[in-house]
C-alpha cells in the first residue's frame, strides 16, 4: 500500500520537500543542542521542563483522541465514521511519534535512553509512560494498517484484529492518564497536585484532537475531493463542543478549589499565570488568550446554526486548538514551575533554537501524517472507483 | 526475463556498493601504527589488580563492576587474587600506577576508535614532569 505515497501531484511533492527542509533545519538545530547541551534552550534550574515537554503533553492528547472515533465506530457500529476513523488512527500514529521525539530531544543524555528499559523501574511514572506510549503506537499501527489493507482487498478484516481495536480504547485513555500522573503525583508542585489533572487532560484532548481532525478533514476534502461526509463532521463538532465545555468547566473547578481554599502553594501559580506575581507577568496575555478563545469557541459551537456552518465550525476549531494548546502547553508546564519550591520566580521563554527543534519535530510528524493520509485516501478512493 | 529499468537499478547498486565498501577502500594501504603501551615501571608495581590478560581483554567489565560497587553498594575496597587491598578508584588507583593516560589508555582506545566517556567526569591527574 505504501506505493500510493510514491505518486502524487506537484503540490504533494512540493509539500513533502518543504517539510524535509524544515526537518533538516530542525535536525541541524538539534545537532547544536546535542553538542552543546540544553544550555541553548530557555530552560533553567527553576523551570526545568519547557517547550518540548509542553508539546509532548499536548500531543499525547491529540493521539488519545482517536478513541473518540474508534469507540463509536467499532463498539457502537456508528457507520458515519466509516470514512474518517482511519484518519483519526493515523493522526494518532503521527502524534505518538512526535511525543516520543519530543521526549528524546528533551533528554540531557539521549544516548542513554535505553537505560529506561535496561533498569526498568515500575515505581516511576515515566517508565509507564514509555510502556503505554510505545504500546499505543504499535496498537494503532497494526489496527490502522490491517483494517485498511483488508478494505483494499475488499475482504473483512481478520478476526484477530477485533480484540486489538477494543484494546486501543482503554489504552487511549491510559496514555493521557499516565501522562497526567507524571505531574499529578509530585508533592511539591501545588499547581499540578490535583486529582482532576487526568480528567482535565482528557477533556482538553477530546476537544483538541477532533478539532484538529475536522480541520484536517476540510483540508483533505479540498485537496483530494475525499469527503468524510457532512454527518461525520457534525458528530465530531458535537464531540468538540461537549469536550471544550468540560475543559472550561474543569478549569473553573480548579479555580474554585484553589481560590476558595486560598492555600498559597496552590494559589500562587494561578495568580502568576492570570494576573502576574510580584511583577512577573510574561504568560498573562497568553493564558487570557487561551481562556477567551475557549469561551468564544463555546459560544460558536453551542449554537447549532453556527456549529453547522462549515466555515464557522472551522474558526471554532482553530479557537479550540489555540485554547488547549496554550493551556496545556506553556500554561501547564511553566505555570507549574513558577514560582519554584522556594517561592522564587524565574520566568521561561523558549529560545530560537528550541523553537527550530520544535518545528523540526512537528514537520516530522506532518511528513508521517501526509504519507499515511496519502495511502489511506488512495485506498479509499480506489475502492470507491470500483 | 526482462529487467525493467535495468540501467537505473544497476547504477543504484553500484553506488550502493561503493558507499557500503567505503571504509575498506578508503583506508587501503594506510595501516594505523600498532599501539605502544607504556606500562608502569617495575619499581612502581609488578602486577595489576588482576592478571594482565584479563585486564587487557576485560578491564572495562572490571571498571563497570567497580563503578557499581562503589556508587551503588558503597563497597570501595577490592581484594585482589593475591589478597592485596585496593581502593576502587579510576583516578586515584588505576591512574596512580598508569600515570599517563595518553601513553596507556589512549593508545588502544585511539587505535580501536573507541571513546569511553570516563574522562567526561573523571579527572586525569596532572602528569609528573
Amino acid at each position, binding site marked *: 500500500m505504501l506505493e500510493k505515497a510514491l505518486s502524487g501531484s506537484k503540490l504533494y511533492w512540493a509539500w513533502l520537500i518543504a517539510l524535509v527542509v524544515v526537518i533538516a533545519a530542525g535536525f541541524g538545530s538539534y545537532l547544536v543542542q546535542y553538542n552543546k547541551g540544553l544550555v541553548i534552550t530557555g530552560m533553567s534550574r527553576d523551570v526545568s521542563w519547557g517547550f518540548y515537554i509542553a508539546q509532548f503533553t499536548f500531543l499525547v492528547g491529540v493521539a488519545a483522541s482517536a478513541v473518540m472515533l474508534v469507540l463509536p465506530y467499532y463498539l457502537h457500529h456508528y457507520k458515519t465514521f466509516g470514512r474518517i476513523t482511519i484518519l483519526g488512527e493515523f493522526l494518532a500514529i503521527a502524534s505518538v511519534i512526535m511525543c516520543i521525539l519530543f521526549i528524546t530531544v528533551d*533528554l*540531557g543524555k539521549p544516548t542513554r535512553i535505553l537505560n529506561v528499559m535496561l533498569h526498568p523501574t515500575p515505581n516511576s511514572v515515566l517508565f509507564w509512560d514509555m510502556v503505554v506510549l510505545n504500546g499505543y503506537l504499535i496498537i494503532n499501527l497494526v489496527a490502522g494498517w490491517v483494517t485498511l489493507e483488508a478494505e483494499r482487498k475488499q475482504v473483512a478484516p481478520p478476526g484477530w484484529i477485533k480484540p486489538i481495536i477494543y484494546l486501543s480504547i482503554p489504552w487511549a485513555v491510559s496514555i493521557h492518564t499516565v501522562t497526567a500522573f507524571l505531574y499529578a503525583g509530585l508533592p511539591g508542585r501545588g499547581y499540578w497536585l490535583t486529582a482532576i489533572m487526568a480528567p482535565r487532560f482528557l477533556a482538553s484532548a477530546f476537544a483538541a484532537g477532533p478539532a484538529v481532525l475536522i480541520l484536517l478533514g476540510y483540508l483533505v476534502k479540498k485537496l483530494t475531493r475525499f469527503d468524510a461526509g457532512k454527518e461525520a463532521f457534525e458528530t465530531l463538532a458535537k464531540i468538540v463542543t461537549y469536550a471544550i465545555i468540560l475543559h472550561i468547566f474543569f478549569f473553573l473547578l480548579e479555580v474554585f478549589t484553589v481560590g476558595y481554599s486560598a492555600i498559597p502553594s496552590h494559589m500562587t501559580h494561578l495568580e502568576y499565570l492570570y494576573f502576574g506575581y510580584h511583577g512577573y507577568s510574561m504568560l498573562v496575555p497568553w493564558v487570557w488568550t487561551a481562556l477567551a478563545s475557549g469561551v468564544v469557541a463555546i459560544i460558536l459551537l453551542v449554537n447549532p446554526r453556527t456549529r453547522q456552518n462549515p466555515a464557522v465550525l472551522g474558526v471554532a476549531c482553530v479557537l479550540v486548538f489555540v485554547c488547549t494548546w496554550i493551556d496545556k502547553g506553556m500554561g501547564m508546564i511553566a505555570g507549574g514551575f513558577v514560582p519554584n519550591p522556594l517561592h522564587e520566580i524565574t520566568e521561561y521563554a523558549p529560545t530560537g533554537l528550541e523553537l527550530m527543534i520544535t518545528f523540526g519535530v512537528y514537520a516530522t510528524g506532518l511528513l508521517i501524517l501526509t504519507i499515511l493520509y496519502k495511502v489511506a485516501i488512495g485506498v479509499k478512493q480506489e475502492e470507491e472507483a470500483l | 526475463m526482462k529487467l525493467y529499468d535495468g540501467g537505473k537499478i544497476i547504477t543504484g547498486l553500484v553506488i550502493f556498493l561503493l558507499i557500503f565498501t567505503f571504509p575498506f577502500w578508503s583506508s587501503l594501504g594506510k595501516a594505523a601504527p600498532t599501539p605502544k603501551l607504556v606500562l608502569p615501571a617495575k619499581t612502581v608495581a609488578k602486577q595489576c589488580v588482576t592478571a594482565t590478560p584479563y585486564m587487557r581483554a576485560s578491564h572495562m567489565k572490571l571498571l563497570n563492576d567497580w563503578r557499581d560497587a562503589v556508587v551503588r553498594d558503597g563497597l570501595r575496597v577490592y581484594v585482589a587474587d593475591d589478597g592485596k587491598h585496593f581502593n576502587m578508584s579510576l583516578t586515584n588507583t588505576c591512574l596512580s600506577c598508569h600515570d599517563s593516560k595518553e601513553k596507556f589508555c589512549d593508545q588502544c582506545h585511539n587505535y580501536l576508535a573507541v571513546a569511553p566517556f570516563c574522562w567526561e567526569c573523571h579527572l586525569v591527574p596532572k602528569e609528573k614532569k
Partner: protein
Amino acid sequence: MGVDRRDFLKIAGISVALGVGGGVGFQLLRPGHLDAAQEGPNPRALKGQRWGMAIDMKKFTPATARAAIEACHYYHNVPLIPTKQNVKWIWLAPYANVFPETDNPQAGEYASLQYITMCNHCNNPPCVRVCPTKATFQRADGVVMMDFHRCIGCRFCMAGCPYGSRSFNFQDPRPFIKKESPNFPTRSRGVVEKCNFCAERLAVGELPYCAEASGGAMVFGDVDNAGSELRKMLRGRYSIRRKPNLGTDPQVYYLV
C-alpha cells in the same frame, strides 16, 4: 569409539541450551555481579542507620555558611555558573524562601536569618520514586545518592523535589570550575546533580565537608541512634524541618 555426527549435534545442542539457560542467562539477568565476593567496604567507613544533619542556628553565622559552601563546592567540583542555569549543592536563602507558608510576623530574629539549604536526604524521597532508571536511589543508611553514570537527564527528579535541591548540567561544567579538586570527579553535560551527604567521605570514616568546616554549627550524625550527638541535640532543642507536611520526612533539622 568415535562420536558420530548425530551424537555430536545432540551434545552441541544440549550444551548450547544449557549455556544459554545457565551462566549466560545469569549474566544477562544480573550483569557484573559474578565476582562480587571480591568487593567489600572500607573498614574505616562510618556506619549509620539513618544519616541526618542538625544545623544550630545559634552558632550559625554568615562566615560559617561561607566556609561550608566553599568547602563543599570546591571539593565536589561544583561549577560556578552565573546564569539561571546554575548548579548548587548547598546555599543560603532567607527564612521566607526556605520555610514558605510558615511566615510569622511575630517570629522575631529567627525569621530574619539566612538559612543554609541542601538536599534533605528525605526518608521518603520523591526524587527516588520518580526516577525512571534508578539513577537516584536511597542507600540503606538513608543517603539519597545519584549514579551519574546512569542518569539520562530527564529531569523528572527536579520536578519531583519539593525543596529545589537539584541542579541540571545544561552544559559542560568544566569551564566553570575555577580550581579542580583532583580526587572527586566533575559531572558531564546532561546529568542532574545534588548534595551526596559526602558519601565518599563517610566511606573512609570522615564527616561531610560542610560539617567539618562549620565549626560545630552543623552536626552530622545517626538519627536512628538514640546515643548519637545529633540525637542529644534534637532532644535538647526545638527543631524545624522544611515542609514536613509533605510526608517526605526530611533529615536536615534546623535548631532554632
